[in-house]
């Protein structure tokens, strides 16, 4: 079965954003909701939802045009549209009667091989299919998305013994390949996996903070980054989820869970939270929550609530200096520190980890599903069991014992929950036996390769790995994957090695961001010392290295995900092809720090503009390049990168990050047949006339206040490079000519105080300076 058309019923936040994400896969969707009483427009709910989606932040659509793939309607008039849908997702109010009555209508209108699933987060599947005919049961399951569906990779799947495996297989495959989801099979238990553990953790953290006088800032500072948990911590996440959603979840859990379940210990709503909900402080969507933005004298001040008094005061950064050293040392040091904040972290975390360990096999047959659910559903960097391995299971169990707390059987038997067997990652079961972690076909993880083999080459910033079938993989691994001289040396050595021993090269890493760009620290040092020859060397080395990569005798395919900025964008522009993860935020952002792309970024981007097959002339390609680079445009997705011309016709997009490396490898192997390096491109550039034209535009922007004084200087240098310097369009420039222009402009800018101020500001604050 092949999913080519989808229906979503219920255009609330979840239903609508699920519909949006399905269009990101290029699949048309019907989005239906009820007809409100006395509505003049019977489709008003779904139509309004799509309008909201277009403005949602972070963006629900990967490309604005995707909204056209949604057909809006209502369930009274348009249910018959669903006759040609292959999958219908129900995302209506959490009321079993309403859902079942809808299912009966769907069962009648949908074709026999159409899967019907519910996005319920609280109702058991058994209840939903109760008294429904077998013909319905065989095509029904729960597909539970996490909010926001475009960005949260977890999809919890719950099926019943009556569900035909064909449907489970089809939806798993579709969600994996087309929607980029990590599908985790769950049992039909309350809250499934993610919310069962996640809500427990949130409530424990909330109740314990109130009881022990921990402030919201302190709680969130410790219950986050130190453990690889997003910086929203406990209270920030509760604000994001919405406090009003908590009481119904607690009520549902109370009814559904067996009396001995540890969840009951945290299952009560503190008075302060009830009061906040009553007064409309339901979180970010309401008047505020534990945090709020308050307007004081026109300025927006971030305030936090006092958990004792319920009053708001200006948020103070939590002072964690007492535990700073412990935090640096290791997790054991942090968790055993006697500071009240560290002790809070130990209590909240240890109870959560014990609760998770106690739920195997109740909610999942093995620990990998639980880890995956917490990673992909709550954005934890490590799942509970991976975290336990990092802490040290024996130490953890000993500490429990010292507090007279029992250790869950899973922990009592094992000193380590994951292990490796001849390089393969294995995990333990309750009996203490290890089993290999299975990867689906088409999934190749660099982390697995790194566990199984040794690098072919390695230095402080990058490594080269053998990923099989004659393909090597170049990995950056410096901080934020910034590029420095070691990265360049590794590229050089890799070119040499791959030329002799491999057929193709893939550039990839499994960090959150492909590369934040060149290492500005090195550049700053040289500028401070007025060491211009070093600056020149930095630029020339990057230019030569990237040219070497471009003209290497083998295909180079990059497989980026996340940020690829500045120098990290430039390397992508030099590859034969890019296999991009859909979440790619790529851009030549150098002007933000008072520079221009100097490692061939102008050269490669200009070529894309010149080769664009559109009626044009000498000027439009230059204007296009100037606008993109001059505004430091960053793509909002890989689809957007295509629109911005950062990605071209040879480049492809992978939705599932776990499939990125395998897809890139396939692409590299395909290119390696009869591979010939690209022919050098000749640049017909208009020269100074274009510079004058762009200068006039900059001047107009400056006059109206849209460009700062220093923007004028930086844009002027950029205009000089992109116009082709003193050239004439009848005498094309070579790639080396453009590189020389880049170098010249770069050297001119680094000597200016305005650039230094921008660099300085960026390194200190992470934000561009508008000088």
């Amino acid at each position, binding site marked *: 079965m092949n999913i080519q058309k989808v229906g979503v019923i219920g255009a609330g936040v979840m239903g609508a954003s699920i519909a949006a994400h399905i269009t990101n896969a290029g699949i048309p969707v019907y989005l239906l909701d009820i007809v409100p009483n006395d509505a003049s427009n019977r489709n008003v709910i779904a139509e309004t939802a799509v309008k909201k989606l277009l403005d949602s932040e972070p963006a629900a659509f990967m490309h604005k045009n995707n909204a056209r793939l949604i057909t809006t309607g209502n369930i009274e008039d348009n249910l018959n549209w669903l006759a040609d849908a292959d999958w219908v997702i129900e995302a209506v109010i959490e009321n079993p009667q309403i859902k079942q009555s809808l299912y009966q209508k769907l069962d009648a209108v949908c074709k026999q091989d159409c899967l019907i699933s519910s996005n319920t987060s609280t109702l058991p599947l058994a209840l939903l299919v109760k008294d429904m005919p077998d013909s319905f049961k065989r095509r029904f399951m729960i597909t539970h998305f996490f909010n926001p569906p475009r960005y949260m990779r977890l999809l919890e799947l719950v099926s019943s013994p009556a569900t035909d495996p064909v449907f489970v297989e089809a939806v798993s495959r579709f969600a994996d390949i087309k929607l980029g989801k990590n599908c985790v099979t769950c049992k039909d238990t309350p809250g499934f996996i993610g919310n069962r553990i996640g809500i427990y953790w949130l409530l424990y953290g909330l109740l314990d903070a109130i009881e022990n006088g921990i402030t919201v800032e302190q709680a969130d500072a410790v219950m986050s980054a130190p453990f690889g948990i997003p910086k929203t911590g406990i209270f920030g996440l509760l604000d994001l989820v919405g406090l009003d959603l908590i009481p119904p979840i607690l009520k549902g859990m109370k009814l559904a869970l067996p009396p001995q379940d540890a969840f009951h210990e945290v299952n009560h709503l503190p008075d302060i939270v009830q009061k906040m909900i009553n007064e409309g402080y339901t979180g970010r969507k309401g008047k505020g929550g534990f945090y709020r933005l308050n307007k004081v004298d026109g300025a927006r001040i971030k305030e936090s609530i006092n958990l004792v008094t319920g009053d708001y005061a200006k948020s103070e950064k939590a002072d964690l200096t007492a535990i700073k050293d412990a935090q640096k040392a290791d997790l054991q040091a942090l968790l055993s520190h006697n500071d009240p904040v560290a002790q809070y972290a130990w209590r909240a975390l240890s109870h959560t980890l014990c609760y998770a360990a106690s739920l195997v096999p109740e909610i999942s047959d093995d620990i990998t599903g639980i880890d995956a659910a917490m990673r992909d559903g709550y954005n934890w960097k490590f799942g509970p069991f991976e975290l336990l391995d990092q802490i040290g299971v024996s130490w953890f169990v000993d500490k429990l014992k010292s507090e007279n707390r029992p250790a869950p059987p899973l922990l009592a038997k094992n000193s380590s929950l994951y292990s490796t067997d001849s390089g393969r990652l294995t995990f333990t079961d309750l009996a203490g036996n290890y089993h290999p972690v299975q990867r689906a076909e088409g999934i190749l993880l660099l982390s697995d390769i790194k566990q199984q083999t040794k690098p072919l080459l390695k230095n402080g910033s990058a490594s080269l790995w053998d990923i099989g079938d004659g393909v090597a993989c170049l990995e950056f691994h410096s901080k934020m994957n910034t590029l420095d001289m070691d990265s360049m040396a590794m590229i050089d050595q890799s070119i040499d090695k791959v030329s002799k021993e491999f057929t193709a090269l893939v550039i990839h890493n499994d960090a959150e961001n492909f590369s934040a760009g060149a290492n500005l620290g090195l550049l700053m040092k040289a500028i401070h010392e007025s060491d211009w020859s070093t600056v020149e060397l930095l630029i020339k080395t990057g230019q030569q290295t990237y040219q070497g990569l471009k003209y290497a005798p083998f295909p180079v395919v990059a497989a980026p995900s996340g940020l690829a900025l500045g120098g990290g964008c430039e390397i992508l522009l030099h590859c034969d092809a890019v296999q991009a993860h859909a979440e790619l935020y790529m851009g030549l952002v150098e002007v933000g720090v008072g520079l221009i792309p100097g490692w061939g970024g102008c050269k490669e981007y200009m070529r894309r503009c010149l080769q664009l097959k559109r009626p044009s002339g000498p*000027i439009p390609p230059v204007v296009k390049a100037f606008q993109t680079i001059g505004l430091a445009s960053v793509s909002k997705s890989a689809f957007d990168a295509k629109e911005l011309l950062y990605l071209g016709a040879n480049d492809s997009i992978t939705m599932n990050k776990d499939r990125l490396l395998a897809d890139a490898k396939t692409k590299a192997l395909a290119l390696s047949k009869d591979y010939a390096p690209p022919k050098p491109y000749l640049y017909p550039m208009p020269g100074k006339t274009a510079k004058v034209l762009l200068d006039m535009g900059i001047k107009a922007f400056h006059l109206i206040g849209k460009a700062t004084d220093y923007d004028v200087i930086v844009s002027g240098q950029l205009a000089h490079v992109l116009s082709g310097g003193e050239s004439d369009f009848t005498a094309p420039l070579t790639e080396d000519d453009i590189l020389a222009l880049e170098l010249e402009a770069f050297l001119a800018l680094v000597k200016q105080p305005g650039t230094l101020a921008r660099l300085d500001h960026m390194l200190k604050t992470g934000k561009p300076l508008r000088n």
Partner: protein
Amino acid sequence: MKNVVIAGYCRSPFTPAQKGGLARVRPDDLAAQVVKGLVSKTGINPDDIEDLILGCAFPEGEQGLNVARLIVFLAGLPNTIAGMTLNRFCGSSMQAIHIAAGAIQMNAGEVFICAGLESMSRIPMGGYNNMPNPALYETFPQAYISMGDTAENLSKKYQINRKEQEAFALDSQKKAYAAQQQGRFDEEIIPITAKSVVIDKDGCLRPDSTPEGLAGLNPAFQATGTVTAGTSSPLTDGAAAVLVCSEDYADAHKLPKMARIKSFAVSGCAPEIMGIGPVAATHKALSRAGLKLEDIDIVELNEAFSAQSLAVLKELPIPLSKLNLDGGAIALGHPLGATGARITGKAASLLQRENKRYALATQCIGGGQGIATILEAI
């Protein structure tokens, strides 16, 4: 010497660029409908027409390739009519009338269609491949100065504050709206058919303008400036056409003689204050006609900007009662190449309507020029 008369005038509706009804209409098709309309309205025998002279400020793309000749074909006119596209920026189609008048007096033709055209939706101001001369820009950058900046310069030079500019704009809006409400444009507008939709009404007017609304707008060109979108003529799509012939021909063929062309002139000035161009051009035309400014009864002064029009009025003290009776370009729009034909044709028709003797039509032109035409009632 032969007398030259204006024997017909019409135009398309003027609609705002990008969002107006003409945004999706090819400019050559647009002008062809207007030319066809002029031929049918005047009942002229097409075989007698010597030339179609068409002014356009950015004659490229869909209005490129000597579009005047193509419009002869598109309008279904005989092949024997020649076609010429000319460019004097905003003065282009007034210049077309001057060329025809000169040719008629040289005995080089009896009847001419003088038209103007601009799609500011489909061809960007500045064109697709603007390639300024770097050496000129270095020594004389004002050669390429933006029009908004010239308006700011005039507002400074003549100390015209923002409030005065807004009052002038509001007045233009009021006059245009009143004219529209009273159907005074109906006679001059040729409805344009585009994909079975008929566009027959001007679209740029802002009848809901208020002093407060105008005062609230941000400056459009300079952060510290006084010129706003409300006191500038909007980017506009439109075409206009005038039938110019010898008086003898008009008499022989019983064409309605709207006005006689008395004199005309072009002039140059500093490009950074191009908006003052009408002053010198008007003085020249007046002196060639042997008239004084006070003799003029009707004035069509193109409103590129409020500041620019007010600066001209400081040098040419024209009573407001004679000025732009049905509103000007701030309200109606300013499709660059088409405006000259519009205001000259309009001045001729106003002479008839108001039963007056002399009319002046004058415009400023980018690059620092002025153009003026004096008409006399018959």
